[in-house]
């Protein structure tokens, strides 16, 4: 009797395979962690891949506009998973007065997230970053590879990407370059929720409805708006997602500030 493997099993197996390939291929690897739902699924899958251990540093880019609940969750999860946590803030940009109070979201996101990330990569000499990018998040992400090289300027050349097939990935990078490793590429938002439910993965409470509102996607507090929802459990959320046709990142202001904002952010190195 051959046991049954579900769609989630297939996704999990593939992600674990990618984690291990990345860990073998790159000497210096790190995993950005936003404490959001996808990020926590990544921590979980890394634990699956390495049998209970996350064997590389986990990086939180702190924009200083974090929700307090998220920071609480960060401290709890760091201890719970025994993570090697690195926290980075672009203090220099904050000192220059860059902030949501005075600047547009694309500028602030670039300075406080992308630039902070670039500096951390330079400081730690990471040659690969494991990210939680999913193809279904945004059209620009549909063309991603599991292993996606970024040049020294962090640019993504989506017109000339390396071929990727038969489980063989682009695993080399030149000095100053790094590779984005994307184990969740094939997952959808509903897959993530079903997996969180099945595995009982801890996530911040802000995803669940309070007073008729909940957060579907979490970013910086001034530019992240909750959606109208009464979904108080994972079952409710899955039921809600099954019927909605609004995009997941609709509540994230930096995506909508101008036409093609996401594409511009991504070409400049945004995750």
């Amino acid at each position: 009797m051959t046991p049954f493997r579900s769609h989630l099993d297939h996704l999990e197996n593939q992600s674990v395979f990618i984690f291990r390939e990345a860990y073998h291929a790159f000497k210096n690897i790190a995993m950005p962690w936003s404490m959001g739902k996808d990020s926590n699924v990544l921590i979980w899958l890394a634990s699956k891949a390495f049998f209970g251990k996350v064997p590389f540093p986990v990086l939180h880019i702190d924009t200083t506009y974090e929700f307090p609940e998220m920071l609480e969750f960060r401290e709890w999860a760091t201890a719970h998973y025994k993570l090697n946590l690195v926290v980075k803030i672009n203090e220099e940009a904050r000192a220059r007065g860059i902030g949501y109070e005075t600047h547009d979201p694309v500028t602030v996101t670039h300075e406080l997230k992308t630039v902070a990330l670039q500096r951390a990569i330079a400081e730690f000499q990471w040659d690969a970053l494991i990210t939680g990018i999913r193809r279904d998040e945004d059209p620009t992400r549909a063309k991603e590879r599991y292993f996606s090289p970024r040049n020294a300027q962090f640019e993504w050349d989506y017109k000339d990407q390396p071929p990727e097939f038969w489980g063989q990935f682009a695993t080399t990078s030149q000095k100053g370059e790094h590779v984005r490793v994307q184990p969740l590429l094939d997952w959808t938002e509903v897959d993530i929720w079903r997996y969180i439910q099945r595995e009982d993965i801890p996530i911040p409470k802000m995803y669940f409805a309070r007073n008729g509102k909940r957060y579907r996607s979490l970013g910086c507090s001034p530019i992240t708006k909750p959606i109208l929802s009464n979904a108080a459990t994972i079952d409710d959320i899955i039921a809600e997602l099954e019927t909605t046709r609004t995009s997941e990142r609709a509540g994230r202001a930096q995506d909508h500030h101008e036409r093609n904002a996401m594409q511009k952010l991504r070409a400049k190195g945004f995750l």
Partner: protein
Amino acid sequence: MSAGGRNTELVAEPPGSAVGNQRLKIVFVGHVDHGKSTLIGRLLHDTNSLPEGKLAQVEQACAAEGMEFEFAFLLDALLEEQEQNITIDTTQIPFRTQRRDYVIIDAPGHKEFLKNMITGAASADAAVLVIAANEGVLEQTRRHAYLLSLFGIQQFCVVVNKMDLVDFSQDRFRTIEAEYRKFLKTLGLKPRLFVPVSARLGENILNLSEKMAWHSGATFVQSLDQFEPPAPPTRLPLRFCVQDVYKFDARRIIAGRVETGTLEVGDEVVFSPANKTSIVNSIERWKADGGDLAIAGDSIGITLREQIFVERGYVGSHQKDAPIETNRFHADLFWIARQPARLSHLYTARLATQEVKCQIASIEEIMNSATLERTSGTAVELARNEVGRVTIHARAPVVLDNHDRVPNLGRFVLVDEGTIVAGGVVHGGVYTDRATVKSKNIFWSEGKISARARATQHGHRGAVVWLTGLSGAGKSTIAQALERELFQRAMHPYVLDGDNIRHGLNSNLGFAPQDRIENIRRVSEVAKLMADAGNVVITAFISPYRLDRQRARTIALQGNAEFIEVFVAAPLQVCEERDPKNLYKKARAGQIREFTGIDAPYEAPADPEIVVHTDRQSVAESVAAILEQLLPRLKAEPLVND
């Protein structure tokens, strides 16, 4: 934008009906401008799979630009695509029918973009080939089908699009169908269905078209729903490919993926290429109760009862169904890099988790992937988008399978300067029975001094140079001349001569077939040991049977020695005229029985590393030809040019 139809109850449900099932991945291919993007845009629209507001957004954008709306625009998520009006890269788009979830892989039709096509198509479960009814079967229509067959995709549906441009003509459809079926048959492919559609007008997409009432078959969506879902290849032989060995805690966990077959606690597993055996003690998973059985597709870890040396690249199998181990294999290679393939160049081959340096030893045939014409001869280059039938020579043994037996271990990529430059599928490999090669209880011991350390001290690597040919072809003469040449280069050659061996080690053997086999086996073993000690062993035996020489190769590779087969060729008539030991005369007179070439067969090598023709080349020329190919392989440090 609505399509009239005969069958109105077939309206797609909103998302929500088919959750939890695995998504079927379908690749769309076809000649450029035959309407793939339009077909996909129409499919998304008619199955109600577009994000909210997407249609309106694209319609507004078209209005703003003063352009007519086209369904293809729905796909063009990136600005650049719209500007260039071609599909740049593989795109994945989910949609859903009443039956199940799908992911569309839109592969480009532009002929320069093979690498994107393979990236998309290699993971597909089924393919849709699009042909424009007004243009019919064109170059890429044939090329794509050929490539998909090479990638191993079995399920096809052919859509004849733009039927509106040929007045929905049944004759036109039948003509195209007949022509294309004939072509697909030459590839061994059987399309599931041919469907006439107009993607632009929505005819025969979701509902049966009234304009094509002559079509009694399925609609496009129905034909998709008839594809079989992928099943994990559990019935194939076990191939557990090791990714790494982890020691994060007290456990020593061998992590990897079961590519094919099943693996159970208590199984005896042989790890190639070392050919070491141990019993599976446990299957490790974190926070999962997967039990004592792992199946194809599972990413797991295992612990072993006896601690044997295993590292990344090793392949676990069951003893009775072991893979092939060889440093030389045949493959169909499709070239995707701008730089053409070159014979002398050193590439890295990656097959499952193995990585070895290799060269393309020869290109026997180049296939025109549009006409399927083969050009045989001695090509030295393989250009971008060409497919060649080649022989790969690797610098270390590779564990592999024939692609038609175990696809996962029968496909590989070549990497140059960190970039994948080609993909290949293996064919024609010979399986040997591991149990007859070696008793399972005796393991090859690597000793304390590594082969690399010996090579560094000796200035060259150990190797077995196996001369084969008829009696009188010149094996012994060439062996001795070659030995002298190597010795003069301060190397460590040694000739294993037939007579010397028979006087000592093999003095208990006669010339009966079983004794001959045993003779060659012992010679192979001695050669392996001497090569492992760092010598260049030159053997000079008729060794008429291919199987024996194959076994000699396997034995040498198990000792991590290079094995180079040299065919010392001369026509029988020439050998008989030479007859240095008067053996042919005796054989002709009936004084010797079962003499090779007279009343016993000689099986010439099918693909030796080196061939010399002693009827036209002098001894010096023959030795020079051998040295030219031999010396680069004996270098102490692996050649690195990438």
